[in-house]
């Protein structure tokens, strides 16, 4: 038995699939670091990250998943910076998680979530590039029989200065691959970066504009059949019976199978045949007690939590309760945030091929190792007989990382038909019903002022769903029952540290979990926390009769980076000067995923308050280091589309235990006509602070900035999302 099969599966699952909680595992570095295993001799690689072919093509291997956020381009820039190769010769590829396991996880963590793709791997991928460069230059020096110090390298060409001889990387790659990897690797000083920090074009655009890119739903394998599935729409329910005979004669239908205890799938020649038969298939579910749950019963449970005795304290200083009791003036408000579905454009899918000797899955996944763990557990085969082939994602947003339910389903169906590849695609309706939803949360906020109108106390009581209670209960055990992730953006320091200094502070959480499964949704808990905090900051400032920016500035004195992004957006929008006629401004800021972000929104509102036009949003982000400003700019604008769609239009409501919204007609998403002009200010402060994320942080500031501007326009404070519930539409 080798190393792999002795991995404790429970710890593997926890470490491999950790998403969103800042749980990056500190793996050692490539190029022969501790635990790393070099490839066998037939693989023409310099190290795990870099393969150079005789024609100078540089293949950069990476394990973070591309889902639109541009991570493979950014990671390639990091490698190329140190490798000193020609950018135009770069290609990328995904190693499989099975290959990584066989090499003692040489590529480290596959998880692509928590805005960690670049910030948690920049050091080891740069070292991979640097080590490869050193080996290539050494190989050239050996060939010339000159000291390596006399050689220089640029764009993949090594030059011996004295003799003016040159060699291309492709000419020395084979010899370099036989050298021992260097023991010590020194990385460039950021001031010498030439590729990092540049707005390089994405490496994967051409195939996306010609229809050539193969997504999971597009996969074709020889002899493949297609499956459609329906799981009990009430979470926790089970299949009682189904009448396969009713559909088994329909054209193309090959098999009707129960999948686990809660789902039924139809396998057919084509997916449309499978879906049509599934729609016609009588299925009886035992929906259980959860059938009685509705949005109203959930809301009531959360409301009770707002004043409950027991709560987990996530951040405190001073004595907030005593200070509030003696405050000269108090301001109080209750906010709420709904369940929301990720709704990536590509519905969940996976293709599985099972035989008694092997199980392979092709899947768009944010975490190849989590997918592999799902294949191992659902196939019953040992790890070395399982593998996962990652496909680029048609959107992820957190749905395709920690949760591999569709992989488990595909494998279970494939086990019923050994030797036949089965492509399982969820309908949009299935995708909407079976989400892993943005957690539902309410908050009661109470602020207290002294006689001089200084904010001296603040209590934020959160009441609602914990993601980690459902997904990573072990983390709760380590924290005496508390979910630390609930306090993102409000935490006591760290990558989600609270920026305001308030003498008496208490932020606590009454955990109220529902039967609706929660998940990591782009931004995770910063979405609701930023609405709660930043709208309430405006409420406090207004109660004190102070300017909303000045009020914040006074409380941010100890956090200059928070202050800097807030000042940047305020200055650019012209805060303090009168807006153009009919226009109104709103501000918000937060520290999230180690980045500092702020937004200033400019809106107009119809006379009846029912139509909102968001004209522009100024967004500032300080991710400490900015690898590709063009892609960061796109992530900022894209995050606002996701965040504003959520603010205006999106809630998943619960009726008879199931999610009522089943498609984009009732769960609308922004269109181009509604798109504000987004002006991003990318202001990396540099230095040695941990790098900040990009994909998620800015999402949280759009909604409160717009809500604060809406108050300025109308005098009406909206405290619950989405705005469609207030009959307010985005135009």
């Amino acid at each position, binding site marked *: 038995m080798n190393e792999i099969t002795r991995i404790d599966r429970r710890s593997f699952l926890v470490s491999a699939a950790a998403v969103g909680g800042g749980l990056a595992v500190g793996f050692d570095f490539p190029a022969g670091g501790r635990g790393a295993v070099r490839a066998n001799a037939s693989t023409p690689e310099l190290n795990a990250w870099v393969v150079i072919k005789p024609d100078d093509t540089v293949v950069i291997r990476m394990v973070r998943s591309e889902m639109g956020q541009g991570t493979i381009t950014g990671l390639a820039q990091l490698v190329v910076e140190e490798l000193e190769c020609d950018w135009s010769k770069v290609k990328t590829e995904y190693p499989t998680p099975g290959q990584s396991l066989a090499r003692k996880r040489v590529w480290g963590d596959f998880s692509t979530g928590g805005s960690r793709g670049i910030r948690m791997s920049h050091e080891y991928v740069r070292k991979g590039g640097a080590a490869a460069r050193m080996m290539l230059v050494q190989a050239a020096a050996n060939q010339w029989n000159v000291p390596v110090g006399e050689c220089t390298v640029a764009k993949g060409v090594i030059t011996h200065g004295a003799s003016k001889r040159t060699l291309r990387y492709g000419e020395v790659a084979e010899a370099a691959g036989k050298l021992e990897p260097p023991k010590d690797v020194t990385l460039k000083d950021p001031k010498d970066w030439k590729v990092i920090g540049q707005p390089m074009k994405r490496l994967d655009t051409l195939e996306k*504009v010609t229809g050539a890119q193969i997504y999971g739903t597009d996969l074709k394998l020889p002899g493949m059949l297609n499956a459609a599935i329906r799981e009990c729409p009430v979470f926790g329910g089970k299949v009682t019976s189904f009448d396969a005979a009713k559909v088994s004669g329909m054209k193309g239908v090959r098999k009707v199978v129960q999948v686990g205890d809660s789902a039924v799938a139809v396998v057919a020649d084509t997916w449309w045949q499978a879906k049509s038969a599934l729609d016609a298939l009588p299925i009886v579910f035992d929906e259980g007690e959860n059938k009685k749950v509705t949005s109203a019963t959930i809301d009531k449970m959360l409301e009770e939590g707002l004043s409950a005795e027991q709560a987990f304290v996530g951040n405190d200083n001073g004595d907030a309760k005593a200070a509030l009791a003696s405050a000269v003036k108090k301001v109080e408000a209750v906010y709420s945030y709904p369940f929301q579905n990720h709704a990536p454009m590509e519905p969940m899918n996976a293709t599985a091929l099972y035989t008694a000797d092997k199980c392979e899955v092709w899947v768009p996944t944010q975490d190849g190792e989590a997918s592999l763990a799902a294949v191992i557990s659902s196939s019953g085969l040992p790890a070395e007989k399982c593998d996962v082939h990652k496909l680029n994602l048609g959107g992820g947003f957190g749905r395709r990382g920690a949760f591999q339910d569709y992989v488990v389903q595909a494998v279970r169906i494939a086990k019923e038909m050994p030797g036949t590849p089965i492509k399982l695609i969820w309908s949009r309706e299935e995708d909407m019903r079976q989400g892993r939803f943005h957690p539902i949360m309410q908050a009661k906020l109470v602020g207290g002022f002294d006689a001089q109108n200084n904010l001296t106390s603040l209590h934020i009581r959160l009441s609602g769903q914990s993601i980690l209670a459902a997904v990573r209960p072990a983390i709760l055990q380590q924290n005496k029952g508390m979910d630390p992730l609930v306090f993102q953006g409000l935490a006591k320091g760290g990558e989600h540290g609270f920026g305001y200094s308030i003498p008496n502070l208490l932020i606590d959480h009454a955990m109220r979990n529902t039967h609706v499964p929660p998940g990591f949704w782009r931004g995770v808990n910063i979405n609701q926390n930023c609405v709660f905090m930043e709208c309430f900051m405006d409420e406090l400032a207004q109660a004190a009769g102070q300017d909303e920016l000045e009020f914040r500035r006074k409380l941010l004195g100890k956090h200059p980076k928070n202050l800097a992004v807030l000042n940047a957006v305020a200055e650019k929008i012209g805060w303090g000067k009168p807006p153009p006629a009919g226009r109104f401004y709103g501000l918000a800021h937060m520290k999230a995923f180690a980045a500092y972000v702020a937004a200033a929104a400019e809106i107009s509102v119809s006379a009846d308050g029912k139509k909102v036009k968001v004209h522009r949003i100024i967004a500032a982000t300080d991710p400490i280091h900015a690898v590709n400003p063009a892609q960061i700019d796109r992530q900022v604008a894209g995050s606002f589309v996701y965040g504003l769609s959520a603010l205006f239009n999106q809630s998943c409501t619960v009726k008879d235990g199931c999610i009522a919204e089943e498609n984009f007609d009732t769960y609308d998403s922004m269109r181009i006509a509604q798109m504000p002009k987004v002006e991003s200010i990318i202001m990396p402060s540099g230095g040695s602070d941990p790098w900040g994320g990009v994909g998620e942080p800015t999402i949280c500031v759009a909604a409160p900035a717009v809500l604060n501007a809406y108050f300025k326009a109308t005098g009406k404070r909206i405290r619950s999302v989405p705005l469609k519930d207030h009959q307010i539409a985005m135009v």
Partner: protein
Amino acid sequence: MAKLTINGKSYDLDVDPQTPLLWAIREQAGLTGTKYGCGIAQCGACTVHMDGEAMRSCSMVVADAEGKQITTIEGLAQGGVLTKVQQAWVDHDVPQCGYCQAGMIMAVSALLKAKPKPTDSDIDDAITNICRCGTFQQVREAIHAAAKA
């Protein structure tokens, strides 16, 4: 059985004529550039051209497409040369995940045929595709660039 003309090529397909055109294109003709997103003509990921007009192929059946000239994303570039819309998409680095972009490009190509110099308001009216990554800012830039090209 159905006879469809897709990208100038004739296909005899073994398909129920009541099958949505989208699925016949993807599963019988094997052209997977056209995407399934919602199945109810909301998102536009399935947009193709029928006799030059942008249509949501998920919500029309094969029988209604017979005798029509259907163009999919695979039929735009000729001989490896991108159309000016596709080229603008490359130049402006538009796609993020890319899943909706085939439908977006088909919708934009039809718009530019009808209105070679569209205003922002024309774009707002004609382009109603959903993009969950949120590429709209680049989409608008690229449409104007393609109109100038």
